[in-house]
Structures are given as C-alpha cells and as structure tokens.
C-alpha cells in the first residue's frame, strides 16, 4: 500500500467522516461554554465575596448553596431544571417558560449554577490566602474598601488561583457533554445520533473524544498563557 492508497482509505474511513460531522456541532458546545463561563466567572467572584463577608446571613446562605450544588451530580441539576421545573404548571404559564422551554438555556443555567459553586470556593481560597500584611498596608495607605478589593485583593487572589480555576474550566468543557441528555444536539448528541444511524459506536465516540481532547488542549494552552502573562515572577528563565 503506497501513501496515496493509505490516504484514500483513511479519507473514506468512518472515523474520518464522523470527525467532520461532529466538528459541525462544535459551535453548539462552544456556545454553551461562551454563555456559561463568563457569567459563571463574574458570579463566582460575587459569591466568593458573599462567602467571606462578615454578614452571617449572607455567608451562611452562600455556604448552603455551595454545599447543595457540590453534593449533587450535575446530571441531577440539569434534569431538575429541564424536566423538573418544566413539569410545574405555574412555571409553564409564567414568563420563565420562554427561557426554560429551550434545552440550550436550561443547560446554560445548570452549568452556570454548577460552576459558580465550585468557582466561588476556589476564589474564596485565593482571597483568604492574601496575607494580612498586604491588606493592612493597603488600609494604612488610605484605600477604600472597594479600592482595596479592586487594586490589592483581587489581583493577588486571581493570580494565585489561576491553575485551580483552570482545572475548573476544563471540567466545564467536559460537563457540556451532559447537556446532550436534554435533547440538545451538541457534539456528544451528534455522536450518539451517528451511532444510532451507522451502528458503529466506537468510531463515533472516538471521533467525538478526539474533538474534546483538542478542545481541552486549547483550553490548557489558554490557561498556560494566562499564567505566563499574569505570573511573570514565576516564569522559568532558561
């Protein structure tokens, strides 16, 4: 078999065809991520502030929210929002139904709720790891409370938690596959449909797996770039 024969047989192989079929659904997965990750990031910061606040009611509420979300599987949360809330008549009649009838927005809602719980714990760790001396010197320089957070605590905390938050981002990329179970056709959903048509499961799921690996690889490079850019004191000099 010469090279061209090999190339042709490869081009006709099922896994190659599947790869491009699933690639067409990549934008659906990316849409899920683009909708849930930025909102999740901002809300995580706000929730982390609530978690460390001196207001007992606020911090306890956030604590219970985190406890419930982290103690239940994401699948339960997605089903609760998509099937559970959809079965309540009051919600079906209200304006919420415009959002909750779409599997896409249910997925975004579940993913956001999930990432906020994990993300806010990560950010809390970062905020509490900022040394007291830095906060005190900020105070003695006359920073306001907001200025202290904006100029001193957040920059230090965010830099420190970048690797941990990066892990959470990768977990989120993987978590988007669960939204396929609510009839939303992203990459895993397409792979399952291909499997149902061609009855060749290994080729379909391997093709999807390669795509997820690529996506995660890009995510890792992005996080590495952020770490390189924002943690210049940790750069390895050769």
């Amino acid at each position, binding site marked *: 078999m010469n090279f061209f024969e090999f190339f042709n047989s490869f081009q006709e192989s099922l896994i190659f065809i599947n790869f491009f079929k699933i690639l067409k659904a990549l934008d659906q997965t990316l849409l899920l991520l683009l909708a849930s990750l930025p909102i999740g990031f901002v809300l995580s910061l706000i929730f982390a502030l609530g978690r460390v606040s001196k207001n007992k009611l606020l911090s306890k509420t956030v604590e219970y929210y985190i406890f419930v979300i982290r103690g239940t*599987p994401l699948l*339960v949360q997605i089903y*609760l929002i998509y099937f559970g809330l959809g079965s309540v008549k009051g919600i079906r009649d209200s304006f919420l139904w415009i959002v909750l009838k779409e599997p896409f927005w249910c997925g975004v809602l579940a993913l956001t709720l999930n990432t906020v719980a994990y993300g806010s714990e990560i950010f809390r760790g970062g905020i509490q790891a900022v040394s007291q001396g830095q906060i005190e010197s900020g105070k003695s320089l006359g920073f306001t409370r907001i200025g202290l957070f904006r100029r001193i605590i957040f920059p230090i905390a965010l830099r420190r938690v970048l690797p941990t938050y990066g892990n959470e981002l990768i977990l989120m990329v993987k978590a988007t596959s*669960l939204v396929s179970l609510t009839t939303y056709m992203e990459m895993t959903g397409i*792979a399952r449909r291909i499997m149902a048509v061609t009855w060749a499961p*290994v080729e379909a*799921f391997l093709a999807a797996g390669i795509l997820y*690996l690529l996506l995660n690889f890009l995510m890792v490079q992005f996080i590495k770039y952020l770490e390189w850019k924002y943690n210049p004191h940790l750069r390895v000099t050769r």
Partner: protein
Amino acid sequence: MFKFEKLIFGDLGWGDEFLIATLMTIIVSICSMGLGIFIAIFAAWAKLTLSKFLNFISNFYTTVVRGVPELLVIYLIFFGGSAVVMKLAKVFGYNGYIELNAFTISVVAIGIISATYSTEVLRAAFLSIDRGQVEAAKTLGLSKFQIFYKILVSQVLRHAIPGLGNVWQVTLKDTSLISVTGLVEIMRQTRISSNVEHSPLTFLITAAFLYLFLTTFSGKFFNYLERQANKGFAQTS
C-alpha cells in the same frame, strides 16, 4: 409539585425501589473506587518508575481519560465494550456472542475514570515521603518487601486519605451517568418513576436529597478516617 405520598414504602409508593436503587449506587461506587485504586497503584508506579516507556503509557492514559467527558467514556465502553471483548475472545478461539451485563460495564467504566484521579493522588502521596526514610530503611537492612510494606504503604495511605476522599465524592457523583447503561441506580429509578407517575420534580428532588445524603455522610466518614490515621502526628493548622 412535590408529592410525598409517592415516596411511601410498599406497592403504592416508590420508597422501597429508591432504597434498593440507593444501595445499588453505593455498591457500584465502592466497586468502582476499589477497581480505580487497584488500577491507580499500577499507573502511579508506572509514572514514578524510571522507564520512559511506562511513563509515557501512564501519562497518556491519565491525560486522555481526563480530557474526554465521562459520558463519552461510558458510551464508548457500553456500546463498544462487548465488541472488543468478542474480538479478544476470537483470538482465544471462542466465536460466540458475548454480552457484558450492565453492572460490569458500569463498574469498569467508572473505575477507569476514577483511576485517573486516584493515580495523581497516590503519586503525590508517594512523592511526599522523604527519600531519606527509604535510605535509612536500607541501611537498617530491611528487605525490599519490608521497605515497601512497612515504610511506604503505611505512609502513602495516610497522606492519600484526604485526596482519596475527594476522588470518592467525584466517583459517587459520576455513578449518576451510568443510568444510560440501564443499570437501576438512583438516576435510572428516578427516570422510571417519573415516567410512570408523570411527576419528575418529586423524584428528581428525592434523587438530589439522596445524593446529598450520601456525599455528606461519606465525607464525614473520610474525615473520621483522616483523624484516625493522623493520630499521634502534630497538626499544623
């Protein structure tokens, strides 16, 4: 809305079915966790050994399995597993049809996923042991097996308990995904009951409470284990 009367035990409610489903979740989690630790011991050893080839295999395994969604791994093993096993059987001269049961598939799939996390935990725990201890054991004339068993294993376990506790929580939550194989655990039972009673909210909230109960109490158990294992060691917190 939430219907308590659907959750009573006996023929009129789904209470006993949910109890059995919860037991199934626990059994699958324990088996997968055990299989995961078993694989992880070899994978962690392969990562720490000097052989470049073994390092590569182990790193490849953990990177690939952790980079792919759990659901895809389960699908791949559920739909592709019996084909692979049949091909293997053909090599050994058996040409019949082999069907793996849902329980085996679930345990293998979750075990393979869980093992990647356990591998990192065990590796880190192993690296936290001072090399000097092994050298000291060698100078005292301990055999290789004695060093492994008395110096390494006992300390690796102590260092690994918090990490393994985290892996356990992840494994327990991952078992919710194996409902796609048809094994009747909590999520599958939720689906069945919701379809019969047309009231998904009731059963989904029940499922959420069951998982919350399981994660909370197993977390307490791991905290207890950690305290027991760290008896006699100074706490730095």
